């Protein structure tokens, strides 16, 4: 069981790697040190993201998949600097934008934009669409530009009619509000967009609109995407690479094809099997995964998935699995994976 180290990967051509995250650790403080002493709790922090490493190539789309407590949203926010990092590195175009200023250097926020889960509530309620999508210009000192023209350009870019500029967020449908979110995200022509649940709350018949828009913009503007989602069906179609998260760790990552066709980790297999198929002849006979995600405050010993794993062995309770490599892109953390690991 070779311990895979990222250093063994043949280094990618310089300039191709847009984002490199290494051993990232993000935690939330549950209580102050005094209270922790009084309650005799060993750990007063909640580890939301643990030991996460990955690389994102320019022009590609990486999907972060996980359920509640997986830490995927926190990871996205940590990369943007919205949440402080407790350990590890975030390298963007070779620099470390979160090192000196944990909130991120101002120029970093021009290069990395975020789209939020709830389309309407991520828009300031008392601002018009026009002021919302031109806000990035004002924040970055580019307010001298013809903001009306920029607003028109952005609205056209995302396929919204011109007269939407004067509307307020509560006057927009979910899909329209999402488009405004996209417009705001691409306002300053960023390099990376982190999209948190881009299809949440959207009807299936209109999910494609937003995803197709994002695909088109990726082509036209050379964007790179980090999509955070729990919707595996969508992931299969729109992402190049996928990472599966459980309790803050990557349990498996690889190209989307590898994940869907040759899943190694039992959790990945369980997630895939749990997706209901819209065909009555393909009904599940058994429930793929029992139990619930353990509390982040009381992490299981060894492999944290062992409490729910159908293949758990004594070793799994004792030792946390190391990272194993299946192929150049395919990694997992499992002592007894579903496929052969060379």
């Amino acid at each position, binding site marked *: 069981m070779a311990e895979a180290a990222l250093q063994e990967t043949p280094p990618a051509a310089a300039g191709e790697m847009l984002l490199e995250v290494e051993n990232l650790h993000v935690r939330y403080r549950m209580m102050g040190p005094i209270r922790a002493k009084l309650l005799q709790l060993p750990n007063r922090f909640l580890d939301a993201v643990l030991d996460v490493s990955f690389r994102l190539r320019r022009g590609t789309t990486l999907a972060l998949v996980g*359920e*509640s407590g997986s830490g995927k949203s926190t990871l996205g926010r940590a990369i943007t600097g919205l949440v402080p990092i407790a350990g590890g590195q975030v390298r963007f175009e070779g620099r470390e934008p979160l090192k000196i200023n944990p909130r991120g250097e101002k120029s970093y926020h021009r290069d990395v934009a975020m789209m939020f889960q709830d389309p309407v509530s991520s828009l300031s309620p008392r601002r018009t669409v026009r002021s919302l999508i031109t806000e990035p210009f004002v924040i970055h000192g580019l307010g001298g530009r013809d903001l009306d023209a920029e607003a028109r350009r952005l609205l056209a870019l995302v396929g919204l009619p011109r007269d939407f500029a004067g509307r307020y967020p509560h006057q927009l*449908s*979910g*899909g329209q509000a999402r488009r405004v979110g996209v417009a705001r995200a691409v306002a300053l022509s960023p390099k990376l967009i982190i999209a948190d649940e881009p299809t949440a709350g959207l*009807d*299936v*018949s*209109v*999910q*494609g*609109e937003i*995803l*197709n828009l994002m*695909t088109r913009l990726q082509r036209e503007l050379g964007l790179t995407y980090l999509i955070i989602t*729990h*919707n*595996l*069906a*969508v992931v*299969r*179609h*729109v992402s190049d690479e996928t990472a599966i998260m459980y309790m803050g760790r990557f349990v498996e990552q690889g190209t*989307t*094809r590898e994940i869907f066709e040759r899943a190694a980790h039992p959790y990945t297999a*369980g*997630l895939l099997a*749990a*997706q*209901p*198929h*819209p*065909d*009555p*002849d*393909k*009904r*599940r006979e058994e*429930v*793929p*995964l*029992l139990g*619930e*995600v353990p509390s982040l405050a009381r992490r299981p010993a060894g492999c944290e998935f062992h409490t729910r794993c159908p293949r758990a062995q004594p070793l799994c309770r004792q030792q946390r699995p190391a990272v194993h490599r299946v192929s150049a892109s395919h990694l997992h953390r499992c002592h007894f994976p579903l496929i052969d690991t060379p």
Partner: protein
Amino acid sequence: MALPASSIAPAANVLEVQGLSVRFRTPRGPVLALRNVSVEVPRGSVVGLVGESGSGKSTLALAVMGLMSGNASITEGSLRFAGRELLGLKPHELRALRGDRLSMVFQDPMTSLNPVRAIGLQMLDIQYRERSLSLAEKRRKAADMLRRVGIPDPERQMGRYPHEFSGGMRQRIAIAMGVLERPELLIADEPTTALDVTLEAQIIQLLRDLRREFNTSILFISHNLGLIAELCDIVVVLYAGEVVEQGTVRDIFHRPRHPYTQALLECDPARIAEVHRELPTITGDVPNLLRIPTGCVFAARCPSVFDRCRVEQPADYPAGPAHLARCHLLAERRDG
């Protein structure tokens, strides 16, 4: 328009909705949320109500339960529960049914759970009609049901409050409360939408088991086609307040006849076998319920629309022995 009436005794259908129309009074005018909706739930079956936003599926559930908001009114139609007309019942008569023979589980379990009351007490509260049972017996019945839905160590957990449980557990408790009195009909309105997919699978299995064990009929409401396919025997497709198609689950998923149903199925990424970067959608938006268009409600977005669709509302045409679709295309076929 109803499915061909069954010739068996009327109580063969635990729920019969006939030509129901619901109107909401809003400051901007009347909203016709449901128009001439007919749905039948045969005893012991699971009927799936599938629809997207604005379809009116939740409104229908609340109408059956008599829980609609003050500005809603039923303008026409009938609601029969086990052969008995619900419309026009006095509030106390309706209350007698609710929780006992007719119950509901909501998307947010906290809709059913009182946050300041221990769950054990709440499960005792539901049994208020059982005058023949002692307190200890009621408590045991509650604990059994909690165990049945997968709450471990129920005797001890009954003293806990809802916030002490996880979301998945809370929904199980809500379901336990919903089926405790062995209702004839359980209405489940998006019961798993707020849950992770692995929990969702567990809850769906639970509903399946409970239905088998207690022969409860279920009206299952969801926008998730996969879940509908997993659980339901009969499927009713709602669009903008109208039933556009209904049939057995195989009719709908394998032989959809209404263009909306067909498009909806095509849009589901889980159904698309080949990996496609561009995903299909249905262009346009759901019509504004303040201004219902004349003709077919789907005409503005239908890929197969023709002139008749914009002027005349289609009738419900048969597409199979238990399969109806509200579309002129079937008429053409019939006449042609």
